[in-house]
């Protein structure tokens, strides 16, 4: 008789795999991608393609020739890093810089720690912050959204709502006056504003987030607490002095807050494991984002706040455990 397989239980395995989860995330990014392509046109498509291809290329090179291990560039994780990195930069960023950013994201952000699942910091954000510090001019020259265009050069650029706000407030202009020159909330919600390629449309990103929660790809804890705590913090300051601090709705709809809360902070590897840990992490991200926006030198603080909280994850995991069965005995 032929030999039987003998292995420990369980003998069933769920259908979900690493790549099915990763491709689920990629699928949920489609609405945000379409909005980005619509408003920023061909440059947005090119920058996204460049980032994805470069990320996969650098992962391949490193896995094949440096680590000399298995090549896993099709598990979807490098594609996500690429898409999110592209979403985090201005659509008209020179493609060469995008390649450099991808090399840093994959090389320094991910592979140097051992690859998938081993990196302490969100790789796309590592790439983004590297570009931000190294190429501040290119990284803060945002194209104005114009419905689909094929222009590659001479795009009209302009400030993002958050940059306009920061500049105005610094010069002492009251918020109410700055607001008159910014798009109304309906346009902000759809994403018709200046900003990084994929961060602009709150509604498309929320749609993707809802899909991921329903499909149980992510849990609600981090996005809800991130957005919620940012909103509450912003509301407090707005109530105290509405001439210096804009209302919370504006804060939520602008910059990278939605993209950060739903896609960057929820990265499995760099966020806490237990539900209470996720909540602490989300609140930390929300508060730090608003503190940087209000008091920092940069108009936007999402990337920094998530990277700072990433650094606390091992500590959070030690401090916050799931509720053990039979721990609190309140029987009666």
């Amino acid at each position: 008789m032929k030999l039987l397989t003998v292995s420990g239980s369980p003998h069933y395995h769920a259908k979900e795999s690493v790549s099915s989860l990763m491709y689920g995330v990629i699928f949920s990014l489609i609405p945000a991608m379409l909005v980005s392509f619509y408003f920023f046109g061909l440059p947005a498509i090119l920058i996204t393609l460049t980032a994805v291809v470069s990320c996969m290329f650098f992962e391949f090179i490193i896995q094949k020739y440096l680590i000399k291990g298995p090549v896993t560039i099709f598990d979807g994780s490098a594609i996500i890093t690429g898409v999110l990195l592209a979403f985090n930069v201005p659509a008209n960023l020179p493609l060469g810089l995008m390649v450099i950013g991808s090399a840093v994201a994959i090389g320094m952000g991910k592979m140097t720690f051992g690859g998938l699942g081993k990196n302490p910091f969100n790789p796309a954000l590592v790439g983004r912050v590297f570009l931000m510090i190294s190429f501040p001019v290119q990284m803060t020259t945002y194209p104005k959204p114009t419905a689909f265009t094929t222009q590659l050069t001479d795009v009209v650029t302009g400030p993002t709502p958050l940059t306009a706000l920061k500049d105005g407030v610094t010069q002492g202009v009251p918020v109410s006056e700055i607001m008159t020159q910014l798009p109304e909330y309906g346009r902000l919600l759809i994403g018709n504003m200046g900003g990084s390629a994929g961060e602009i449309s709150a509604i498309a990103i929320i749609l993707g987030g809802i899909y991921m929660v329903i499909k149980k790809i992510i849990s609600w804890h981090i996005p809800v607490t991130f957005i919620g705590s940012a909103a509450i913090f912003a509301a407090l300051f707005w109530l105290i002095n509405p001439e210096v601090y804009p209302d919370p709705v504006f804060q939520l709809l602008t910059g990278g807050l939605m993209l950060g809360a739903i896609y960057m902070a929820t990265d499995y590897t760099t966020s806490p494991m237990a539900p209470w840990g996720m909540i602490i992490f989300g609140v930390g991200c929300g508060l730090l984002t608003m503190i940087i926006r209000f008091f920092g030198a940069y108009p936007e603080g999402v990337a920094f706040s998530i990277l700072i909280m990433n650094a606390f994850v091992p500590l959070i995991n030690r401090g916050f455990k799931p509720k053990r069965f039979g721990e609190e005995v309140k029987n009666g």
Partner: protein
Amino acid sequence: MGGVHPPENKLAEKQTIERLDPPKSVAIPLAQHLGVPAEPVVARGDQVKTGQRIAKGEAFISAHIHSSVSGKVKKVDAVVDASGYRKKAIIIDVEGDEWEEGIELDEGLQKQCDLDAKEIMTKVQEAGIVGMGGATFPSHVKLNVPKGKKAEYLIINGVECEPCLTADHRLMMEKGEEIMVGIELQMKALGVKQAIIGIEQNKPDAIQHLTRLAADYDGISVQALEVKYPQGAEKQLIKALINREVPSGKLPIEVGCVVHNVGTAFAVYEAVQKNKPLIERVVTVSGTSVKKPSNFMARIGTPVSALIEAAGGLPEDTGKVINGGPMMGKALNDLEVPVTKGTSGILIFTENESPRPPEQNCIRCARCLTICPMGLEPYLLAQLAEKQRLEECEDERIMDCMECGSCLYICPSAKPLLDHIRVGKTRVGKMIRERSG
């Protein structure tokens, strides 16, 4: 808290229980229960009758063993059992089917019982009954409530949350009255006024049937439970039925409960009312490639191969044969392994269904921790166990793990979480024993 939803695949749920004839030869292991193995009281060459005691379990946690057939003791020897190890067993060559005197063989329902609690308990012990859900803890020990503790509820486990298995389901459908009487006897033995039968909602016919029967019995009720694995784990079942949490490291009696399987209730009925020791049980034989998925009433000691033969034979593309359910069962390396008191099913997997998915890096998705029914952190326990950081394993409550397999089932990276945790538990258990001298 936690839980997973594996595919149910209850292919044999409509197949009525079919009685199998005794095989040509049986191997009856001496360790079919938790605790101390029984001591043989027969020797090579002895003639034995069906139902005759052939080994006695006198230790505090042990159980007697009876011959499931009539014939001649061929030898007492080590045979491979479901664990994969060679264990001592009594091997009997079958000759006819002559039953021990005093065992009632007619199938008529016997409701009336004049025995007192003590006498019922003695009968249960005499019959060698053990937990038939798979844990095989000697039943008379559970019916004997320790001093200072009080039982309030008898919980009857009809959950059968393991996929594929249908043995308990069929028993509830076909032996409902007997189970009710068995429950009543156990209630009397324990001195409890209330018994709750928990059944998962995927068995509406059983819920309906037992609810109707329970109307005629005082203090017995049926509760439908959400379909979720491991709903039938003792602690999870108590939590779901009466919302009490058994504290870490403690037994159900701590919260006033005694839990028995429906199969055990039926065995108690047969022991007390019919004088029949535990010598046969219902075994599901199933699998997607099995010609005739079935539920058999099989004699203890019947080789697994005989059951597979009765279900249409071993399919050509078989890759794995499992003793028990797909979540907690053991893969067999030998098909001559005998059916024991704890064998609830024999599952046949095709070659394609057999291997685990390839292992990948842990992506820290937190699924294992979200679904762990004990609120543990399997990813962490597996890491600590792998590195033999045993004190930390203990602090993270590795001993609370009941090895339900949900973590490995759900892991998208197919990390061998439970494998590491099992080894860790063994090591931590040893460390604890050495510490306490």
